[in-house]
């Protein structure tokens, strides 16, 4: 029945009616901006930025935080009802839709007026936020992918950790990465994946963990394999109109991945559970998993197991990682566009990003601040060069694919990836079919 959606709708309409209350005249004197973000780990860093910003500009900033799951629903409904925050933390999967619906302010005029130096940001991060000559954000941070491994498991397998810096991979025989995950897989009798008598039905520790989700991108799950073969997601990025999901290289890479699942070297989907990577790695059900730099703190701070990081394997076309970054965007309905811009400019400036760097939770977008963040990690005894070295090499970077209707595409793709992980479909056929469905959405 209609009740639930309609009730929400009625609520939104009611809020819209209340949201238009008039500003008091003295508001021009003391402006309070609202700023929203989803990551609780980053909240202290940006609170510090906000305090520093208030001290210099006199503009107050009120930060609201909601988890990723609720964040976007909250942003959307508040945009509809006219109660949206002045500045929001934005993600490339969402901003095209918001921009297309005129919900974001074009900051290009401000950037031109204040002559913001866009070359100080890592790689091409700044240009991800430009659509049709309009700019919707200044880069605040970036993330890359690297391997997370259990130090003890690697030692037990008598593997020299130094060799993990030069892993190779190819879809034919898996390269040294393929060898590694075999060796790291141990069954209940202590037999390793590359030994005779290995029982794949009774595995105690899998060589390769499995994170569910990932949608069409598979950012942490599988993206690095096809990318290292020269695969590209889109005809052009950002704002391509054709996903190349029928690329045979993608099918080859995913097929190899599925083969490892069949052979018992990858944690099976049924065992992955819905509780995420953490329990799987902490209980040592898996020895190694590719993961994003935003979770460095989780692994480095673990008390149950000791984890370390290694660079992604080198594929036929070299080493490739997805790089992505967040940016603050100004909502179109803000009553204080000038003050909001000041705050956005501050987030994108060394003044704020150096503060964020000290906290060592994310890598700030400004190259010098990112180096400072890596230094903060090193001071704590954590080597994050697996994430930073690759970011310094433009040839290794593949920007997160940006299109419209990203949610819809991800839903379609997720169903197919699930089926591949459940070993229910042949990747080449399923991906070809997915390609047509996605093309229909982007049509």
């Amino acid at each position, binding site marked *: *029945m*209609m*009740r*639930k*959606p*309609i*009730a*929400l*709708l*009625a609520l939104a309409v009611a809020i819209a009616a209340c949201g238009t209350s008039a500003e008091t005249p003295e508001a021009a004197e003391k402006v309070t901006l609202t700023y929203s973000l989803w990551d609780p780990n980053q909240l202290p860093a940006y609170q510090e930025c906000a305090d520093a910003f208030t001290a210099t500009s006199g503009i107050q900033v009120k930060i609201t935080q909601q988890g990723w799951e609720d964040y*976007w*629903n909250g942003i*959307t*409904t508040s*945009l*509809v009802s006219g109660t949206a925050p002045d500045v929001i933390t934005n993600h490339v999967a969402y901003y095209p*839709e*918001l921009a297309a*619906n*005129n*919900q974001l302010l074009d900051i290009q005029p401000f950037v031109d007026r204040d002559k913001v130096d866009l070359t100080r940001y890592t790689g091409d991060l700044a240009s991800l936020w430009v659509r049709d000559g309009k700019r919707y954000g200044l880069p605040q941070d970036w993330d890359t992918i690297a391997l997370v491994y259990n130090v003890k498991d690697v030692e037990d397998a008598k593997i020299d950790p130094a060799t993990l810096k030069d892993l190779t991979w190819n879809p034919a025989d898996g390269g040294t990465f393929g060898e590694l995950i075999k060796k790291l897989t141990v069954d209940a009798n202590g037999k390793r994946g590359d030994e005779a008598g290995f029982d794949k039905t009774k595995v105690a520790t899998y060589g390769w963990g499995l994170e*569910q989700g990932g949608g069409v991108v598979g950012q942490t799950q599988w993206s690095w394999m096809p990318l290292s073969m020269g695969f590209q997601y889109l005809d052009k990025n950002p704002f391509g109109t054709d996903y190349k999901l029928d690329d045979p290289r993608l099918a080859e890479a995913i097929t190899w991945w599925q083969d490892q699942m069949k052979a018992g070297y990858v944690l099976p*989907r*049924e*065992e*992955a*559970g*819905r*509780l995420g990577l953490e*329990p*799987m790695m902490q*209980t040592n*059900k898996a020895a190694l998993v590719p993961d994003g730099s935003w979770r460095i703190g989780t692994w480095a701070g673990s008390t149950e197991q000791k984890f370390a990081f290694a660079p992604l394997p080198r594929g036929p076309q070299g080493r490739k990682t997805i790089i992505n970054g967040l940016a603050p965007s100004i909502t179109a309905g803000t009553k204080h566009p000038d003050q909001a811009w000041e705050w956005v400019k501050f987030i994108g400036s060394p003044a704020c990003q150096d503060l964020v760097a000290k906290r060592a939770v994310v890598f700030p977008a400004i190259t010098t601040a990112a180096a400072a963040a890596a230094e903060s990690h090193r001071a704590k005894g954590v080597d994050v060069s697996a994430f930073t070295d690759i970011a310094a090499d433009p040839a290794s970077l593949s920007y997160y694919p940006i299109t419209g*209707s990203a*949610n*819809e595409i991800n*839903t379609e793709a*997720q*169903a*197919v990836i*699930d*089926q591949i992980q*459940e070993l*229910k479909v042949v990747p080449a056929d399923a991906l070809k079919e997915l390609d047509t469905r996605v093309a229909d959405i982007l049509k």
Partner: protein
Amino acid sequence: MTLTVGRSSPPKIAPARGRRRTAGDPVVAWLFLLPALLGFTVFYLAPTIRGFWISFTDWNLLSEPRFVGLDNYRDMLADDKFWNALRITAEYVVINIGSQTVLALAIAVLMDRLTRSVLVRAAIVIPWLVPNVTVAIVTLFMLDHNVGFVNHILDVLGFEPQSFYGDSDQAIATIALVNTWRNMGYTALLFFAGMQMIPRNLYEAAAVDGAGEWTMFRRVTLPLLRPVTVLVLVVSIIGSFQIFDTVAVTTKGGPADATRVIYYYIYQKAFNEFHMGYAAAMAATLFVILIALTATQMRLLRASSSDLR
């Protein structure tokens, strides 16, 4: 209706101080109805009509809606995800209502024939008092493949661990049975209340005729319980079609679309993918389906007539 009432209920005794029906009665009646009517109009009728209107537009929440006629409905008929969602919802309803009704009837009979203890009656509705979301989260942990208690028991008993919510072949049945567990006590209470209206002497007469418990259940309880059964079925089937919270908490429609029930699909289209017009079209269709289903049920089970005369 009034005729049968005259036959089945004790003869009407005239009120002590006979107050005739006066012309003022309807006015008073409407006054009493007004608050409910107001709420109904503001919170149900108006949004429903607006919902139907939205279903003829391409509204995406963020831009002005544009009238697109029947486009949404045409897209819907061609959308295999929509049909998949309907199929999965039907699967859910069959498993949920089937198991829930049978178990609830069994519990009600046991309560009726064995114990009338208020304590038992209270205990049996406890699961129903726990919010759906809580049940979902608790079962998510209890049924987890790695750390779940249920799998621990299975392991002790020598069975293979199951992934329940995580397996596309089991997920929808898992959700259905979890909700059966939650709702069956409440449904049983409704049946139990219905059973109290069946005259005891019918059971005595049946016992004198040599009928066993099973025959009494089939020949006395079930037929005389029919109006209550219809009510329970209509209400619980409509409720069952509205399955949303358990899915939203545990599986989010996955794995591999195996639990993308119609309500969740509507929600996703409206609030994740910004196709409010399309979502409204599906909601409107579901509305019509439920009305048709309810009407059919009422007809088939002759809801308004009772065998008790």
